[in-house]
């Protein structure tokens, strides 16, 4: 239960987990084809995910939060063939030949989505042999892909589903590097291979980092960057190189394939979304100016504990803040974090996402959103319950480029749905059932609908409620 981000440095003088950094074996991306290289056989490492069998399901009498700010009391939701068919109030037509679930006293939300997870690339057990999240051998590694580090047997995936109702999540490289590499978006479905978890059609993301981590990791080795200005110079120079590559790639004689440059050019072309780890308000603003210098867009600032200081700017720039409800004080750049960050952003009209970066809090993003909501209300900011649910459903989906497919309960979207046994904004609530593409993959009432990873098979506590 160590802080993913940094605490290890305190105790050990060496960083071992999460957004911190440690030496990791070099992953050689052996792509024979790339999604961004024209004339190839198709996308590299294509998704092989297929939805599992689903029934026609109707839930009646539940309180429904649709993920886009709407609430239906005594609501009805109908799912069929893995899709949402209809959502509405008590007068919604209930189709025949469906399994009807009485949701009286219960709540329905879209599947919860975590925009910032290290499940699989920093899995449990968090032994050194599993430390695969930071290619901390160079501060510039846009060529690495998080999916080549993800261990599908991480027991954390099943906890995220059973306790947190997580149905989709973005796995990011860590924050040791200025350019950490590509992210991968997964459906939270147990699988033998990462490809069988990959969210079909999700755009790639690229992890970037500013602030303390890169300068600590490399400055400690007497390498660049050892300062924030060093970080910015190296980052800008890399973008200059990427612009040249992008230009050549569009020319008559395309350059030799280069994995790093393919990712960066993908960002400049608008195909790959930038997820930028950055804490301090002044640095967020520097990154915004850098993105304008090179003509790319920052989709979301992650861990942006000081977003509230520039909420007006973030609203204007339409950049999401992916944040914790109340983490603070674990390092200098997290010292000014306040629990009202989310509410102040919402008040300013900026995009709020509650994220985890943690194998524990991914199990209760609903509770984290609830705390952030309560802290906002306590200072007089009016936010509805349904808006707080949007922080952990539609808004992360939007930042991951999958909002047209999931993240809210709109007809035609994937039937990624959680039935909660109580209000998900209450501490006394837990998921009762979780559907992914209409397939019921968790049922608290049925021990056989609780996934058990290979790692936990035959171990003490196998199949326990956890």
């Amino acid at each position, binding site marked *: 239960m160590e802080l993913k981000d940094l605490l290890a440095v305190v105790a050990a003088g060496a960083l071992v987990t999460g957004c911190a950094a440690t030496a990791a074996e070099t992953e050689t991306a052996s792509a024979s084809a790339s999604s961004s290289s024209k004339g190839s056989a198709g996308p590299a490492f294509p998704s092989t995910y297929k939805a599992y069998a689903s029934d026609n399901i109707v839930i009646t009498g539940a309180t429904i939060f649709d993920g886009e700010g709407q609430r239906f009391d005594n609501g009805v939701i109908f799912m069929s063939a893995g899709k949402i068919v209809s959502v509405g109030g008590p007068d919604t037509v209930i189709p025949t030949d469906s399994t009807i679930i009485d949701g009286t006293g219960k709540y329905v939300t879209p599947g919860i989505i975590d925009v910032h997870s290290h499940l699989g690339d920093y899995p449990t057990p968090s032994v050194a042999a599993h430390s695969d999240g930071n290619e901390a051998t160079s501060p510039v590694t846009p060529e690495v892909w998080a999916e080549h580090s993800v261990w599908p047997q991480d027991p954390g995936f099943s*906890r995220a589903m059973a306790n947190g109702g997580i149905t989709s999540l973005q796995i990011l490289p860590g924050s040791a590097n200025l350019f950490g590499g590509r992210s991968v978006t997964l459906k939270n479905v147990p699988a033998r291979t990462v490809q069988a978890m990959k969210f079909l059609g999700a755009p790639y993301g690229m992890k970037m980092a500013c602030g303390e981590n890169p300068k600590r990791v490399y400055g400690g080795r007497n390498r660049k960057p050892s300062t924030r200005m060093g970080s910015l110079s190296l980052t800008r120079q890399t973008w200059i190189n990427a612009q040249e590559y992008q230009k050549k790639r569009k020319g008559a004689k395309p350059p030799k394939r280069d994995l790093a440059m393919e990712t960066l050019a993908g960002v400049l072309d608008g195909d790959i979304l930038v997820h930028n780890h950055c804490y301090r308000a002044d640095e967020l603003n520097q990154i915004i100016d850098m993105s304008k210098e090179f003509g790319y867009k920052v989709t979301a600032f992650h861990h942006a504990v000081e977003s509230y200081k520039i909420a007006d700017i973030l609203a204007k720039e339409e950049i999401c803040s992916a944040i914790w409800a109340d983490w603070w004080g674990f390092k200098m750049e997290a010292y000014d974090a306040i629990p009202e960050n989310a509410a102040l952003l919402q008040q300013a009209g900026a995009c709020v996402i509650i994220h985890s970066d943690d194998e524990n809090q991914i199990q209760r993003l609903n509770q984290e959103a609830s705390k952030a909501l309560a802290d906002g209300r306590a200072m007089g900011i009016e936010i509805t319950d349904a808006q707080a649910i949007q922080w952990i459903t539609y808004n992360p989906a939007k930042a991951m480029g999958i909002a047209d497919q999931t993240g809210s309960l709109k007809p035609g979207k994937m039937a990624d749905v959680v039935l909660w046994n109580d209000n998900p904004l209450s501490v006394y609530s837990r998921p009762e059932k979780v559907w992914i593409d209409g397939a019921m993959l968790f049922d608290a009432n049925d021990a056989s609908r609780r996934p058990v990873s290979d790692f936990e098979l035959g171990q003490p506590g196998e199949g326990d409620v956890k």
Partner: protein
Amino acid sequence: MKRFVTTFVSTLALMAVPAAAETIAITGGKVVVGDGSAPMDGATVVIRDGRVVAAGTNVAVPADARRIDASGKWVTPGVFAGFSRIGLVEVGAVRSTNDTNAADSVFSAALDVQYAVNPFAAPVAVNRAAGVTRAVVSPSTGKSIFGGYGAIVDLGEDSNPITKAKAFQFVELGETGHRRAGGSRAAAHILFRAMLNEARTYSRNPSLFDSDLMKASDAKALLPVINGSTRLLVHVESANDILKVLDLRKDFPSLKLVLVGANEGWRVANEIAAAKVPVLASALSDLPYSFEDLSATQSNIGRMKQAGVNVAIGMINDRDAHQLRYSMQYAGNLVALNKVPRATGLSWDEAFAAISSKPAEIMGMGDQLGSLKAGRKGDVVIWTGDPLELSTQVESVFIDGVEQSLSNRQERLRERYRNPTPGALPKAYDR
């Protein structure tokens, strides 16, 4: 989590000397005594001279009491954090502000947190405002298996945080102990035994003491552990490590053991109960963080409780210097388990006791702290609702009968940036 009502307090007020203890009657609230009994509606709590005089429905209000109407509110003992590093850390990664351990010190068991706990640290004010009033403060370990003396502290705004110094000794005997001792559990256990035996040698003739394992000060610090006058808090997680700790009393029969962490405690709950060893357990650990945590489950505390183990919630290595305000959320989650088939949680009353009277009792201070029974220190919190619920806010906090300021720098930052756009002058003038 639990926030305070908006108050504007000047920097001067922050520096002010806290008010003296007064006679206070908090009337009409839903009162939770904290001893595991059910809440009482419309009850009164009377505090005088820094102590609870009475809490109940038939309590007379003294004529000289300041009356506080708590109708529609909840009134509870302050939250007692069963295991923490509060006051030892300002900024975790800023080493000069982090006093949890001293890997470069020549001392181990003799290190004493009472000299390091900083009552003016920002985390103390933040967690006080959230309703946490007392805490177990433990060192972590440097290069020895022993971390040193821990203390019981209050989170009051006054300058003396120490309720009980040298309240316990802390030792690592699980995976961390393996590492500290040089690379195996065998090494950890022989080191433990050797240090205690050499401490006995020290007690026979202090002037001749000469040990490769420790300084005389460390030996002296271990004597009250050996004779059981000081508790020994032992961090272990795995079922087997727990059993090996219980076995230590074969060689050292007077040890007053308390287990910390104990993620696999449920698997050996009967043995822990039979040994009458209490546990300060992590509430929501449910992943195999390491091989010592293979069977971790959120049902751990509930199952140990059912087996008769004396158990409270602690937060070892879990944001334990900054986020004691998670205590209420954690307790609430254990209540939530009651609705999950095959899971074992705690009743609401038990859950609140696990963050109030239970840790106080386990630390031997149940007659002084952790509940609203007559004679206990006047640590009282008034909440807007159910203190375990996420939407609930803190209205007032009393420590030793003194009403506390709820102001802190998070609140000040919030107010400065309520409107982020600078006005006629820069934000730096806005306070």
